């Protein structure tokens, strides 16, 4: 029974991955510009994530080591430091975007500009980590994140043509705007396949003290969690397609995206969107802050746990305190969170191979996984993700310049 409650780890991971500002912004933009034609990109991202997250949990449950720990131990510090540099820099940018997303949501709800919210929001996120435990964050963020189910309600209420929706799950090339289409597809994949999700999930499995008995449950949690997130992301795309595409509205600003639920839920939809995004970005901000702190602590051999009082794992606590403080600075200075979001997604896509290639090697290591190593199906999926990641790495920055 206790194991089923662990579903919350899956939900919070996927909320942080699929429903954060980047994924919602790109899904809304995709729907507005291309109707249902990019649903396949969300589906592809979801399938990849189900496998990657399941593997992350399995590695932790069997070896009692997180991905970060295993990467340092197997590949040595010099290689690990390159991975750490890439992953932490990109995750930091995403953190800035998420804090900005909370600020933009509060701007919609209160009328006060997001710059004014930068300090209180950062303080609130920090306080939750300072005083909270891992279960509080896990369960709290999941529960609050459920408000995002309103996206599905809105999409269904707008009566999409389900046949066309199903058609969108098959990849097609558009007649025109090919560069823009490519850019949005890359952004969707870059926004959904975020390495910090894997690092967070494997650390969460250790925080929740998983062992080999959790392996079957881990499959359900990863599958359910990521499917939940993927569904919600698709709902955003569908709602945006119905709300914006017929009117030729392109989503460039956060406030525009907030309108996507208004055809179904009138003006309440506007505020509900802001509330849902507030909770989703909060979940994501907590997840990313923890992921960055986990990276330092696990890689360098410090004590780490959200369940310890800060003085018991002082270096770990110091890292998340410092990064949240620093992440507030660009927002105070008025940097547009949406621009940071776009840049962070392109960079996530560009640095993906750095995370996934070592991961494939780890998942085949008998000293960590014993008899629970990857089979040929899992290896094939990771190989495909690696291929996608190299393609994304090469084309994401040029596409950002041409199509962005």
């Amino acid at each position: 029974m206790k194991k089923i409650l662990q579903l919350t780890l899956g939900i919070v991971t996927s909320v942080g991955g699929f429903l954060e500002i980047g994924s919602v912004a790109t899904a809304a933009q995709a729907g507005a510009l291309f109707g249902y034609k990019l649903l396949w990109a969300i589906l592809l991202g979801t399938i990849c994530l189900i496998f990657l997250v399941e593997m992350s949990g399995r590695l932790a449950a069997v070896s009692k080591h997180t991905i970060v720990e295993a990467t340092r131990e197997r590949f040595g510090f010099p290689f690990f430091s390159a991975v750490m540099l890439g992953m932490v820099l990109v995750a930091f940018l995403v953190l800035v975007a998420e804090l900005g997303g909370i600020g933009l949501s509060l701007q919609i709800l209160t009328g006060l500009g997001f710059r004014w919210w930068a300090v209180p929001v950062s303080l609130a996120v920090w306080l939750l980590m300072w005083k909270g435990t891992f279960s509080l964050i896990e369960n709290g963020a999941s529960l609050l994140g459920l408000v995002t189910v309103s996206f599905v309600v809105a999409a269904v209420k707008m009566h999409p043509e389900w046949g066309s929706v199903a058609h969108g799950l098959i990849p097609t090339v558009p007649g025109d705007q090919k560069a823009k289409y490519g850019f949005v597809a890359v952004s969707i994949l870059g926004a959904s396949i975020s390495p910090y999700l894997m690092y967070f999930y494997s650390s969460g499995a250790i925080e929740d003290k998983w062992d080999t008995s959790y392996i079957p449950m881990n499959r359900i949690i990863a599958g359910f969690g990521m499917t939940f997130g993927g569904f919600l992301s698709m709902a955003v795309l569908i709602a945006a397609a119905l709300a914006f595409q017929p009117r030729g509205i392109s989503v460039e600003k956060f406030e525009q995206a907030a309108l996507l639920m208004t055809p179904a839920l009138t003006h309440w939809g506007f505020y509900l969107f802001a509330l849902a995004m507030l909770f989703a970005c909060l979940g994501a901000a907590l997840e990313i802050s923890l992921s960055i702190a986990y990276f330092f602590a696990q890689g360098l051999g410090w004590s780490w746990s959200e369940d310890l009082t800060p003085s018991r794992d002082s270096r770990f606590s110091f890292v998340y305190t410092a990064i949240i403080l620093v992440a507030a600075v660009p927002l105070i200075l008025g940097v547009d969170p949406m621009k940071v979001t776009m840049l962070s997604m392109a960079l996530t896509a560009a640095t993906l191979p750095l995370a996934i290639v070592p991961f494939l090697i780890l998942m085949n290591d008998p000293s960590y996984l014993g008899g629970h190593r990857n089979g040929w199906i899992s290896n094939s999926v990771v190989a495909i993700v690696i291929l996608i990641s190299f393609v994304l790495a090469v084309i994401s920055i040029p596409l950002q310049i041409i199509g962005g």
Partner: protein
Amino acid sequence: MKLVRDVLDKKLTDREKCEMGRVDGLLMRVGERSQPRITHIVIGGSTLWMRVHPALARLSVRLARIWGPRRTEPITIPWSRVESVGKDIRLDVKARDTGALDWELWIARHVIERIPGGGSEEEEE
């Protein structure tokens, strides 16, 4: 046993299973005619950064001189203190006595405990 695969970069725990860092380096005594032997495990200092680039090592020493417990030398633990080598390496030492937790304690006392709700090392004991 293989040094790089089984020892280097592995997690270290003390007698009380307290985490005390990772094997950042290994000191080896080499003679003309005698068999080389690993004499010490090295933790922290500039050892780690030296493996990436000497300039980073010099920078870490400079920073350690101005902030923190002002320790620039790494911690060295004699190999004879190694109790077991498995997924982690267990040492027959007490972490606090080795200096491996100096940075942890310094940041706890000078930063974390000054913030409300940070807790305190003494309280916990």
